């Protein structure tokens, strides 16, 4: 990776830059010619950001100045986002009575929260599931009530169930007839055996009630930090540009550019043990979105860990954040990051056990595939 800035921060790969430019300067879409759109729309779509792009462009550019074909694709992005939003609201509407009997709070996380709060961040966004965090003590009761109401677990294999319940912070995803979205029940935001131990009690205690609903959401600071660890600590970065954009928008909302907001964010990160993750996220946001206030945040978190390691990870992450068409191989990078993500999530002895079982299961799967008659 080449260093475009005065600092040695890695620049995003060239193939993804048209998307970043369009997102940060949507008004310039007026001047795009057809071959630019031809490149940009598939790029945005494969990054799951077509709806977000559409929202930003339509806010700034008069629709009639865009070619019909472009309008159709941007509309398609908004339509898909509207569908997901609708299905999220419908799921929440359906589970409200089921949850009522159990002590709360019922804290919506990530996409479902952004929708419930009607944040600008939610516009054009494509949530994949509904994340709900409830107190550990209520979890079993809620699980039973949901099952009585027709909800089922998607993963039924005994090993996965065991893994989720014993070691993870969430149950396996639940599905129900008539529901297009999955429900992910959490009792914390990170695995209890991981290297970062957030103050879960604090998350619950300060959660904010959503007016006119039985749900809560995390405080703005906690929402930032959750998004940060979700990307930096709980993922392998591959194709996660959308998640980084969420962080960028949550930071702008604080706003990060204000010194007091930064101080509060740092203090909170310290409370949850997330300073190093925050530093890494800040480096990435600076490189990819030039989020106002990031430069200062990077400096203010510089002593939280090895700067070299941080830049190293940022460099690797940068190579795989974008959609598939911008990644061009990077297989080794992906392997390294996947390894890192497992390492972060579990203590070494558990990691070895998990990897060994998964390895054995994969071998079994491959064997059965070979037995199937050759198709086509």
């Amino acid at each position, binding site marked *: 990776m080449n260093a475009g800035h005065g600092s040695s921060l890695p620049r995003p790969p060239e193939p993804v830059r048209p998307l970043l430019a369009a997102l940060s300067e949507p008004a310039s879409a007026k001047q795009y010619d*057809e*071959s630019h*759109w*031809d490149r940009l*729309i*598939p*790029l945005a*779509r*494969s990054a799951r950001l077509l709806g977000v792009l559409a929202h930003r462009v339509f806010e700034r550019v008069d629709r009639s100045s865009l*070619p019909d*074909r*472009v309008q*159709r*694709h941007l*509309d*398609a*992005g908004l*339509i*898909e986002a*509207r*569908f997901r939003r*609708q299905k999220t609201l419908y799921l929440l509407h359906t589970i409200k009575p089921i949850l009522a009997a159990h002590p709360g709070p019922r804290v919506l996380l990530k996409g479902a929260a952004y929708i419930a709060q009607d944040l600008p961040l939610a516009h054009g966004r494509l949530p994949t599931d509904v994340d709900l965090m409830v107190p550990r003590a209520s979890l079993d009761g809620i699980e039973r009530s949901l099952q009585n109401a027709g909800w089922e677990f998607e993963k039924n294999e005994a090993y996965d169930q065991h893994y989720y319940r014993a070691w993870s912070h969430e149950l396996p995803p639940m599905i129900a007839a008539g529901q*297009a979205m999955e429900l992910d029940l959490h009792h914390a935001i990170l695995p209890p055996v991981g290297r970062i131990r957030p103050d879960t009690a604090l998350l619950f205690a300060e959660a904010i009630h959503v007016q006119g609903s039985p749900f809560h959401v995390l405080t703005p600071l906690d929402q930032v930090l959750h998004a940060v660890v979700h990307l930096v600590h709980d993922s392998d970065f591959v194709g996660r540009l959308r998640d980084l954009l969420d962080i960028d928008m949550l930071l702008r909302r604080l706003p990060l550019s204000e010194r007091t907001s930064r101080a509060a964010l740092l203090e909170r990160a310290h409370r949850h043990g997330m300073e190093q993750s925050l530093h890494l996220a800040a480096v990435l946001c600076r490189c990819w979105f030039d989020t106002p206030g990031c430069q200062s945040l990077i400096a203010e978190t510089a002593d939280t860990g090895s700067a070299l390691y941080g830049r190293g990870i940022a460099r690797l992450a940068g190579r795989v954040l974008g*959609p*598939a*068409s*911008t*990644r061009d191989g990077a297989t080794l990078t992906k392997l390294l990051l996947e390894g890192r993500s497992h390492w972060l999530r579990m203590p070494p002895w558990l990691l070895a056990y998990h990897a060994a079982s998964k390895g054995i299961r994969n071998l079994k799967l491959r064997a059965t595939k070979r037995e199937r008659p*050759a*198709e*086509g």
Partner: protein
Amino acid sequence: MRIAEIPERLLLQRLSSEGVGVDFGAARSRIRTKLPACARLIQAVYGGYVAEDPSGMFDVTVDLRRVRGIRGHVRPQCELVCDGIVEQEPFPLDTSLPLLEWGTNFALATRLFCYLLLHAGVVERGGRAIVMPAMPGSGKSTLTAALTLRGFRLLSDEFGVVRLQDARLLRMLRPLALKNESIDVIRRFESTAVIGPRFPKTRKGTVAHLAPLPSHVDARHEVADPALVVFPRFEPGAGVVLEPVRKTRAFARLAVNSFNYQALGPEAFEALAQLVDESSCWQLRYSDLGGAVKALGELLDETRPTEEGMRAVPRSLRVASRPPE
């Protein structure tokens, strides 16, 4: 210039570099491939299409390429890539055309949320469309093919493209996929039909593609009014039987047989209701293909809107011909 008129070598050269554009009507696709066999197949089945300038904007770009790696030598395969993603299992290298067709259909069906996409064969005559939802065993493709060979013009054999604003039918003109017995049926029905090579042992059986007529390709930007919704069912020994279907039932069956009705919400509801409102809805059971084509033509004529805008109501049950010996 039509694709059929491009010298084979030049076509391959263009497919291998900037690609070749084709316009289906409601959408345009850019095709790229370096596979010579695939280029020849494209020429055979897309011959009537104009080769569009590949430098503009396209709704989808599909790359057909050889699968790399060890697999590629032991059992040569090809894959279709769209937006950097390989959406489906690879196909054997010698079935690149079915892969192109099914892969392109999939790419279109999952991206065009700007239209309501029914899963149906659609033809028209005089600007009035017959929408034939595709159920397994319906013989929809056979019937659609036969109609296009008897004076009806093809809109699509796979996608009923409904414009959301006004429920008009748009064209998504693609080569028509015939499967198994229907290949021979159509060959017998019309000896001048341009049918591409057979591909045995695909996951849908043997498949061959009927090239759209150049005059149908030329009409790709014409819009049609909904007139008939017909649920076909091939039934040995049935002859030709047409029975009316309640509009609420037709609505439900159309919605269920669609690619994206669920995702479009209120606009899809309104557009589909409008389409059904303007159409006369029927169930067709048939074993006599020629008889079915004739019956549909008569039905279309009988349901011509009168001056008051009311639909003439045909007889409630029709048996148009005895089953053939």
